[in-house]
């Protein structure tokens, strides 16, 4: 009885004792100063100049005067550029959906059926992620080359088309999607599935009502994790479409490389970030809603 009482008061008093604890290992807030200063100068600084440039007026080749000129933003409304914006977002969307379709079953297989070789499978997913992005894209180019075997014997001649770009997107971003998805599948309690099937649920129903719901946050995170860099993609459209199927990123790059129209390039950058922020905000709303329901 005395013991029970003691543990009883112990558990009740624990939170209060924790708060009153004379010492809590904490690190001084000034440790954030180096990175704060760094971000302020080398991230917020460039962003501020980008905004200033986007509102500046172009005066001849490569020179400009600051002001509040929204002409560059109006130019984005030109069908030439809205087409590229739409294409970028649609291709990133298609790329993300394809990545989910290819990657989710693999992550599921790794989490559900592998035991001893789980580590090896994860390694096999990570190795391409740790090899050069350019080399991987170049390797795809060898395979898809019109003079290569795939074009000659299988009749698949898609290099320099949007199909090659889609393949490149999925190929390069697959590991990035598989990792968080695998992590959320790994946390799944598979006895729930057993319970459901024991109670008469068909496997597909059990999957839809339990596995899919529990892993959806991981899938959405993974999808956003690939969607965002896909919309800003520069290398893949350039190499695999040979300039035939440019993304917004390529047009932005051109304004700084060749056209020397930096105000317009800056305005395009801001517009791209604006388009992306819509998706990020939707995601944050979704994530906080998930948190509220304790998923």
């Amino acid at each position, binding site marked *: 009885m005395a013991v029970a009482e003691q543990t009883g008061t112990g558990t009740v008093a624990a939170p209060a004792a924790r708060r009153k604890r004379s010492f809590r290992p904490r690190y001084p807030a000034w440790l954030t100063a180096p990175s704060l200063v760094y*971000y302020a100068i080398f991230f917020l600084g460039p962003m501020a100049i980008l905004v200033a440039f986007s509102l500046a007026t172009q005066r001849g080749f490569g020179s400009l005067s600051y002001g509040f000129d929204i002409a560059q933003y109006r130019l984005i409304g030109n069908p030439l550029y809205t087409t590229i914006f739409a294409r970028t977002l649609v291709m990133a969307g298609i790329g993300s959906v394809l990545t989910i379709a290819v990657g989710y079953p693999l992550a599921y297989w790794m989490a559900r059926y592998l035991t001893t070789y789980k580590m090896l499978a994860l390694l096999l997913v990570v190795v391409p992620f740790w090899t050069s992005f350019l080399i991987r894209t*170049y390797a795809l180019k060898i395979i898809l*080359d019109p003079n290569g075997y795939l074009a000659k014997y299988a009749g698949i001649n898609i290099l320099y088309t949007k199909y090659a770009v889609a393949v490149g997107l999925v190929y390069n971003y697959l590991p990035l999607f598989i990792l968080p998805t695998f992590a959320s599948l790994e946390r799944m309690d598979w006895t729930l599935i057993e319970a459901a099937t024991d109670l008469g649920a068909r496997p597909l129903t059990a999957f839809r009502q339990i596995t899919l719901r529990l892993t959806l946050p991981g899938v959405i995170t993974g999808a956003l994790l690939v969607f965002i860099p896909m919309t800003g993609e520069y290398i893949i459209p350039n190499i695999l479409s040979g300039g035939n199927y440019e993304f917004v990123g390529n047009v932005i790059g051109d304004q700084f490389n060749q056209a020397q129209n930096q105000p317009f390039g800056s305005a395009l950058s801001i517009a791209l970030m604006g388009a992306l922020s819509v998706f990020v905000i939707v995601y944050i709303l979704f994530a906080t809603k998930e948190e509220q329901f304790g998923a």
Partner: protein
Amino acid sequence: MRRRVTAKQGFTVWAVAVFAFLYLPILVMVIFAFNKPSATSVAAFHGSNICNIPPTQVGNITVWNGFTSCWFSAGLHDPTYIPAIVTSLQIAAAAAIISTVLGLCAALALARMRPRLRAPFDALVYLTLVVPEIVIAVASLIFFVQARNYLHAFPPLGKATILLGQVVFNASVAMLIIRARFVGMGDTLEEAAYDLGSGPMATFRQVTLPRLMPAIVAAALLSFTFSFDDYVVPAFTNGTTNTWPIVLYSAVRFGLTPAINALATIMLTITVLAVIVTAIVLRRSRVRAAPGQDQTGGLDIAVGLR
């Protein structure tokens, strides 16, 4: 029961197909590092070493023309490739160190900071990760040019500016990896150390730091890889400096020889070895340090999942 087995088999077939998709291009790249120039270009070439044939005359190298290993020596002796690789290694090493130190400091303070104080910093960190790299690249370019215009002490476009541009993203990644590990560790061992009379510095050195090591190493390795592999930021902030991805990119766009494949194969081998060694080290440190049901040998820490 039979149904369950077929589902498993179906998934296994899919998994094998996906791994084939992931590895086929890499395999082709390695095999074609041993590919000869096309027969017609060899016939037209008058030198003794066929691997001296320039990119413009090498012919169709996307089909198999025969075995040679001379591209490895050609790649290693190329006047542009090796210096570019050395430059990239230097920048990547510096980026890894700076990013990890910035990330570690911030992670230590942030992990136990009140959420309300932490929120603005978190927002800033996520912003650096969400802004597309091409936007960071062009913004950094105009910033560096303006900074140089107004402040003569600011470095001109080159190695230094590539580094300054890359650290933004990498410091955020490093911070998130280290913080995730730090939060997951809890503070009981540190508290025990304090209770036993150890001071803050000694506790940090002897308790916190060793337990954070896997995450610190992972953050440094990841920053190194991201920086070494990065094309977009250097492409705009390089001035006249050539990094390996920049050389690679122009080669891929404007013609190349299998010497590129040979160098890529060498680097792939080094990466694979490094990944294996890392996995083993992390696995051993887990066995020594922690209980738990971690089945991935700490690899999830290495790729920033925890």
